[in-house]
């Protein structure tokens, strides 16, 4: 059974059709990529899955449950985590606090009588994630003062701290150097399985290198879907995307 499914999912912004009747299915543990030219509707598609936007029509089914109208914060608890194309962190909180606040959301919101450091499991989990994203040394610095690449990793760390089953990554390598980009690709590959990942990415080397399957979006609609070889061979994809 797929962990994520969309059924003729559409989003209209007035006359503009940003996402056009998309049917999509991702199996548990897969690492999938979505590619497509600027304005193809990739981010809008993510927004509807994570709950930042409600669809104009169609359904989002997560883990067998129709979540099309479920508020974003509840979808987070169901197991959908995401990062944004434009870095979205808590710039004026410390690196540790960024991670810890995300981890805390799994345990408690309205706990008024304890203190955060007294929750050992929270402390351990934050430490572990800081280790994974390689920011242990900078834990006490303000997130906004980190280098761009570090901030991108921090945001992935925030998403990981919420224990997602499905992780949506919107151009995680945006603004990174070619070297960093390749490293990040490897890092993402390391996250997959049991975690399910959907990746929106412009860097073809990364996409071709790590994806189980690639989906090509064009003008809000599906153009093609298949393995790396299939997509590479697809003439139409060549025409609209790969050659550009």
């Amino acid at each position, binding site marked *: 059974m797929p962990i994520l499914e969309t059924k003729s999912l559409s989003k209209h912004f007035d006359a503009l059709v940003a996402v056009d009747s998309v049917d999509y299915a991702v199996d548990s543990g897969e690492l999938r990529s979505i590619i497509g030219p600027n304005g193809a509707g990739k981010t809008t598609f993510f927004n509807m899955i994570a709950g930042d936007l409600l669809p104009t029509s169609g359904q989002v089914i997560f883990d067998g449950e129709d979540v099309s109208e479920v508020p974003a*914060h509840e979808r987070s*608890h169901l197991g959908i985590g995401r990062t944004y194309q434009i870095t979205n962190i808590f*710039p004026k909180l410390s690196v540790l606090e960024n991670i810890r606040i995300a981890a805390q*959301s799994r345990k408690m919101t309205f706990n008024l009588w304890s*203190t955060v450091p007294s929750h050992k499991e929270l402390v351990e989990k934050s430490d572990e994630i800081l280790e994974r994203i390689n920011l242990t040394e900078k834990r006490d610095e303000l997130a906004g003062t980190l280098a761009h690449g570090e901030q991108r990793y921090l945001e992935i760390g925030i998403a990981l701290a919420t224990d997602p089953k499905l992780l949506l990554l919107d151009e995680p390598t945006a603004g990174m150097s070619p070297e960093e980009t390749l490293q990040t690709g490897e890092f993402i590959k390391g996250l997959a399985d049991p975690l399910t990942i959907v990746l929106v990415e412009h860097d073809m080397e990364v996409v071709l290198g790590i994806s189980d399957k690639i989906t090509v979006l064009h003008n809000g609609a599906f153009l093609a879907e298949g393995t790396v070889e299939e997509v590479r061979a697809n003439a139409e994809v060549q025409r609209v995307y790969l050659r550009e």
Partner: protein
Amino acid sequence: MDSTAPKNRFTPKDFWAWLAEVFDNYGILILAAILVVYPFLFDALNESIIWLEDNDWEETAEIVAEIRGFVPSTPLMIQILIYTLFGIAFNILLGNTGMLSLGHCAFFGVGGYTVGIMHAWIKPGTYAPDWMVSVFKVLPLEISLITCIIVSTFVAWLIGTICSTKRGVYFAMVTLSISMIFYYSAQTFDDLTGGTDGLGGLENMRLGSIGLRVGIMDANITYFFVYILSVVFIAAIWQVLRSPFGHVLRAVRENEDRARICGYNVAKVRLMAFTMSGAISGVAGALAIIYGETVPIENIHFITSGQIVIITLFGGAGTFLGPAVGSFIYWYLRQLMSVEFVKYLDIFQYWEAWVGGIFVLIVLFVPSGILGTIRNMTLEYREKKLLTKQAVENALAKNDEAEAVADSE
């Protein structure tokens, strides 16, 4: 010598920073200790004047009396304490959740009117039903205060559900408008509230359980009563702000969208913060009517909301005790200008304008408020100390290395 190491010279700026550090570490304790004995100190000052007069030290007595004019009286300290509690409650929203409410006079007023109306009307020969009057020969303050907490919590929750979904300017305007409705209601239902004359008839307010009387005749007892309640509620707020929920508030302040995607129900968090802030502001409003034994309608007027914004920003919205500093400065300056300075210069009767001017200066030159600026200096000082320590350690390590090399050769 390593020339890149920062020189460890003690500048005047370091002195202030050091003072700030002491204040940061022990400030709360020092403050609380002084405040516990304050009425006795002030009484001692009064006594000393009388003693001096009795012993033919007329001139010295006059000088001390002159000085007394510059020392905050116990009633003024009551006011300062109440607005400290009010400001810290208000700052749950402004400083911690990032919500600027311009309608907190509604809670302050509702708290005061709840207690006031109960004491003014639950007595023989009024609107109150007979059974109520016979149960409470003299209504105990405990009962009215508990009622006040319930009422202001409910009112805060109600207003919160209406306006805590709004953001920024819209939030400020909606809270302001709603508080206007409360003001005009207080004015309209003057049978109950006393309207613009204020609500009187509050003599003989007693703590039923120990029969203690509070009010204008008993400044010291009122002071201790207000002190204890303020400390209890301020401590409660302090705990809430360091709790996991407090961390969520700051996350919402910093990036609401991120907090939501992290799984927090932001609307509910904001409503909860609003309700707590409003409820405790109501308690402050109740305390504010005890010493004066009246509920002035100004308490529910927009001007009170303005005051609490100014007080909080004076002290620094980014710090916990900022409103305490703000409250002290605001009320002390007001007292000085309108009572002391005005003796020498007429223009000081327009103390509002002066306070306004000072507010402008603070916003322009120390935008993080007085305590906020002190806090920043503390951090600077700590950093400098840390750097110096590291530099010394580095130098020592180098020295050791050099010696080791020299030894081996």
